[in-house]
């Protein structure tokens, strides 16, 4: 909001060369939000409580829909721990790795009677799953992704699904088996339904995408060729709204016991939790996560380049190798968390961490010291990993 205030204040919205733009993390963050992955919103960011919107979905889908918002992820976990939430279908996200409170998430997932994981690899979450449904890589998919500039691009299959099924087919067949008659012959019909039910996508179809290459939403009667720049003559909401943005300092404070601030980021060659990139040659550039520490802070602790150090916060500890670096000012340390073994969720404090793509927004007070062993959690991780994947790899 503050950034939009700043841009309005200086007249920097609605023209080429200006604007306020998020650089999204995962390839389809924009798309998955647009498509209504929200407990309170239908596709196109329209509240489930809005009667007219709900009615349009009810008419199209042929049944009455719940008008009350559902659970967010943290609620699902809380309810699971309490014992009232029992089954989950998780499409391609490694939630077990994104929750900082490993004990909480473990307790929640363990408490489920039916956890269904759909992914390419046995991820951390799959350790608690009862059903594993193999997913497809982008080389096998047929559909669209929406990038950070609202651009829908076609994903076309280079090869057939190696699993024998498209992911939308899996979901469709579960719905059918549960007694709801969902049917599509191919994914273009899903896009047709999206267009039919979502005003900002009304003008989108595979045919048009194949013709025009790509389209930026909103794409409808008012903007048949899509919208490269938004808010040109007026804002979508009409008049721009200056919103008050009070700065609330973080509660995480440095103390003599935890005198350093940890900030996290990502590196070019690896991608998020590295489930894909770790399984390629990209590891030559980044075989492990490294802790960058200012030479001043390092000297105080007797840390040299390449030393194994224990990174400790109020929450937990993990070991990493050190790199002396002047990229940060003294007092701030930095690392990437691309490797599950690094255990980001052990050290950092807020829910929804870096695996969900918000690596830098939280602040964690930490301490670093030389060590000669990996942390207890890391040992536990290695043991569990070995136990889970061994029988599988043997059988294949």
């Amino acid at each position, binding site marked *: 909001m503050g950034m939009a205030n700043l841009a309005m204040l200086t007249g920097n919205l609605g023209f080429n060369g200006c604007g306020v733009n998020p650089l999204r993390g995962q390839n*389809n963050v*924009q798309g998955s939000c647009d498509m209504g992955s929200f407990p309170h919103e239908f596709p196109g960011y329209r509240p489930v409580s809005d009667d007219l919107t709900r009615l349009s979905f009810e008419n199209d889908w042929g049944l009455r829909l719940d008008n009350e918002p559902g659970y967010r992820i943290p609620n699902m976990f809380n309810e699971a721990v309490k014992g009232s*939430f029992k089954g989950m279908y998780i499409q391609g996200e490694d939630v077990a790795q994104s929750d900082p409170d490993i004990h909480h998430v473990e307790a929640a997932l363990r408490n489920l009677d039916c956890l269904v994981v759909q992914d390419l690899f046995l991820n951390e979450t799959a350790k608690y799953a009862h059903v594993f449904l193999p997913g497809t890589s982008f080389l096998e*998919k047929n559909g669209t*992704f929406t990038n950070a500039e609202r651009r829908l691009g076609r994903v076309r299959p280079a090869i057939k699904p190696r699993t024998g099924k498209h992911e939308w087919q899996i979901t469709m067949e579960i719905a059918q088996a549960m007694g709801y008659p969902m049917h599509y012959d191919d994914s273009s019909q899903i896009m047709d339904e999206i267009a039919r039910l979502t005003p900002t996508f009304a003008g989108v179809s595979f045919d048009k995408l194949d013709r025009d290459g790509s389209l930026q939403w909103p794409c409808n009667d008012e903007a048949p060729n899509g919208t490269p720049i938004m808010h040109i003559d007026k804002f979508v909401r009409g008049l721009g709204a200056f919103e008050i943005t009070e700065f609330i300092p973080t509660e995480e404070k440095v103390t003599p016991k935890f005198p350093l601030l940890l900030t996290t980021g990502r590196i070019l060659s690896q991608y998020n939790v590295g489930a894909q990139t770790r399984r390629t040659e990209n590891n030559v550039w980044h075989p492990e996560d490294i802790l960058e520490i200012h030479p001043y802070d390092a000297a105080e602790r007797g840390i040299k380049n390449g030393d194994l150090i224990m990174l400790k916060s109020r929450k937990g500890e993990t070991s990493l190798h050190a790199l002396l670096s002047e990229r940060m000012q003294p007092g701030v340390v930095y690392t990437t968390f691309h490797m599950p073994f690094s255990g980001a969720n052990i050290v950092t404090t807020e829910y929804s961490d870096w695996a969900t793509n918000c690596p830098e927004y939280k602040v964690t007070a930490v301490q670093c010291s030389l060590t000669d062993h990996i942390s207890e959690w890391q040992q536990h991780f290695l043991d569990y990993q070995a136990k889970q994947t061994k029988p599988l790899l043997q059988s294949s």
Partner: protein
Amino acid sequence: MSLEKDLDYGTPESLCQELISLEIDGHQVVVPEGTSIMRAAKQLGTSIPKLCATDSLEAFGSCRLCLVEIEGRRGTPASCTTPVEAGMIVHTQTQKLAKLRKGVMELYISDHPLDCLTCSANGDCELQDMAGTVGLRDVRYGYQGDNHLNATRDNSNPYFSFDPSKCIVCSRCVRACDEVQGTFALTISKRGFESHVSAGIEDSFLDSECVSCGACVQACPTATLMEKTVIEHGVPEHSIETTCAYCGVGCTFNAEMKGDQVVRMVPAKSGKANEGHACVKGRFAWGYASHKERILKPMLRSSIDDPWREVSWEEAIQFTAKKFRELQQEYGRKAIGGISSSRATNEEVFVVQKLVRAAFENNNIDTCARVCHSPTGFGLNKTLGTSAGTQDFISVESADVILLIGANPTDAHPVFASRMKKRLREGAQIIVVDPRRIDLVESPHIKAAAHLAILPGTNVALINAFAHIIVEEDLVDWDYVNHRCDKDLFENWLAFIKREQNSPSYVAKVLGVEAETLRKAARLYARAERAAIYYGLGVTAHS
């Protein structure tokens, strides 16, 4: 190089509005001022032989293959570096030119290992094409004399190899690294016969500054820089246009295939997000799709302590559906839910939320992405009315000042970063707000106007301080605010922003950045003709 012979006009498009008319080989053509003769000819369908020119790079004029004759001018100028002029009469095919071109090609070929039939680029090599085009059949110089045929190969990069014995020193790789990628990792060392391409000061590719984007490999007209997968599988046979599945840039690629095997991923020039460029992830890191740990069969187990058991799709789906319904019967409609993925396609996500709403009959659907993106999305929605970025990527090429907050595009959104760097090299200025000195603060040919190394978690204070300074120093665009914004809300906000707690001297302590530095940066943003904000995940809820 790429299989899809995307039309190559030889030199970049001219954006000039003035049109110029000229004659090439007896045909009239009208092109924008600043267009090269080579490009104008291509527009008529005439391909002038060329080696060092390609339309993603500025013309260089080193290979001397693209010579033409112009009536009323002496000599044979290079068509890639000669701009069109009104009324010009150009000849691209004459006996004199044919002879000259053949001579040039002979020189190249005499220092080239003639193993075309077994070369990995056979059929995909511009040197080979050109030899054919100029009608070269045999080589007068033979292999006598000095040559580079014994130069050693550099295989250090995991994805491409560098075989200098095949290099024609056209410098396309060097220019691709500079102009397209903006890394400046390559140089042509030494001069004359000794001249050669090197990564850094004679490093191997792996040890150099190279970030393995592959732009040089794509630009190389020979087999000197070559994807290892092409060496392994051979030249691809067909291709399919698709979108990268790694980051939010969403680059368009041609997946080049041989049967069912992906041989290479080549970024498509037609892709509006990337215009022919890519990064190491999208171009090279797709091998995970066939990694041995990938699971291809559905699996079940009754307890998480049991080993997995492979089952049929039918069994897995029936089991899931039955179990879910039973759980709902026992624990209620709301006892089950789903999470959709921000890596899945729009269609896949749509059906998951539909499954939850229509088959589970509740709204227990969420995505991990929302947890960190919803605050910013929410913010933009509230102020402007839409939860999404306001611009297309190309917009940054018109920005005069860029305010970059908590984002590290050279690592996380590399292809967009290359675009940004290009704009910075053209003279735009950048203010970097980040606790860490990221590459955009200082790297070859880039120097940020300011690096505000704020303490982690203080973005909001910084943004408020910027606004405070702009108000205090009356740098406000009043016309814009009065016409386009809600007056009451603005007045309300104005009272808030003027508070002492948002003043630079107060905020400076919170941020760990000096007040005067803040002032300078805020002025730079406010005074720019066109100023753009790009922010990353490092930005908190209220910013």
